[in-house]
């Protein structure tokens, strides 16, 4: 299991614990009744099952992966993780995974030392990705992912806010500017940077920075800049992201357009 796998399992446990503690605290405040339990117990059960699902998805091996001994599997796991986290298409990823398994199983059968076959799994995986996609194309694909993510979440946030008050006109729903900042921050910084980490790199420091950025920084900024009109507008202001039907249609078109552009970049511009 790579450090990335351990980190993902740890995060799923931490989120579940936070959820359970939150629910228990709320039950303490509101008092227990049957209606309360009827929908909170299933949430706790689903979150626990999600942790198990994450755990088993990380340790699961297919029948060919099981054929590799521990030394070979360790190298294979690193290569697979980098390829699977890359900007390659799902078909390319599947093809590469099969090719690597065939090469490693053949080398293992020939009793070759794994270090003679793959000296640096990270370098090997990066060379494979480069043979499919040039680095500048990877940057464009990452940017398109960011645009898709921000469009989807802005749309979702607007829908949720509108659902809170359905009588209001959908096109007059506005979102807090700080929520938008978080959406763009996640789309264009957090996700691309986290994808750049190698499976066995420790991402503790990065996580700490993100936590500080998300939780502490807004508090610190508002405290330090209290009275500053711009900062106060940033934290208290709201903006209407979908003011009319044309913008709404543009939001709906953004996702398929980005998917089409990604497929075009991957296939035709190799």
């Amino acid at each position: 299991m790579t450090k990335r796998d351990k980190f993902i399992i740890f995060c799923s446990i931490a989120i579940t614990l936070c959820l359970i503690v939150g629910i228990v605290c709320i039950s303490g405040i509101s008092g227990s009744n049957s209606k309360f339990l009827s929908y909170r117990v299933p949430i706790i059960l689903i979150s626990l099952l999600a942790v198990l699902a994450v755990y088993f998805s990380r340790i699961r091996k297919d029948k060919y992966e099981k054929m590799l001994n521990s030394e070979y599997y360790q190298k294979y796991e690193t290569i697979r993780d980098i390829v699977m986290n890359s900007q390659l298409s799902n078909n390319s990823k599947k093809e590469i995974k099969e090719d690597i398994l065939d090469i490693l199983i053949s080398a293992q059968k020939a009793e070759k030392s794994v270090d003679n076959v793959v000296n640096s799994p990270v370098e090997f995986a990066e060379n494979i990705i480069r043979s499919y996609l040039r680095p500048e194309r990877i940057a464009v694909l990452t940017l398109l992912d960011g645009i898709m993510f921000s469009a989807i979440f802005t749309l979702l946030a607007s829908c949720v806010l509108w659902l809170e008050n359905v009588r209001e006109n959908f096109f007059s729903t506005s979102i807090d500017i700080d929520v938008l900042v978080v959406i763009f921050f996640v789309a264009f910084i957090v996700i691309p940077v986290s994808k750049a980490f190698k499976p066995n790199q420790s991402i503790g420091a990065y996580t700490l920075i993100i936590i500080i950025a998300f939780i502490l920084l807004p508090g610190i900024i508002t405290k330090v800049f209290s009275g500053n009109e711009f900062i106060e507008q940033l934290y208290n202001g709201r903006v209407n992201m979908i003011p009319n039907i044309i913008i709404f249609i543009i939001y709906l078109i953004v996702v398929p357009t980005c998917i089409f552009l990604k497929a075009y970049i991957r296939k035709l511009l190799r």
Partner: protein
Amino acid sequence: MNNDTQIIKGILEGCILKILEQEEMYGYKTVEMLSNVGFDVNEATVYPILARLQNKGLLKTDKRPSPYGPTRKYYSLTNEGKESLNDFQDTWDRIKNIVNKIMEDDKND
């Protein structure tokens, strides 16, 4: 032999095309062929080259069941690959003649 140099990579590409022109082959077997003729290469060097040649349209692949693991990819040359091999052979002959001439001149001096 420093395998990281662009020259070796270029020569390897040409040699892989030549090997695959003679016989269609899967990745691991190609590595063995190159090792047998004296190239100090491993799977991690050859597989990205095969993938690059395939993506450039110089190689085509045919998937067949393998006796050990998942389906195995057999590589062979496309028409573009054959043209690229001819280009490589022309370039190689020219470079080889120039280098030999310089080396022989050096010996005669």
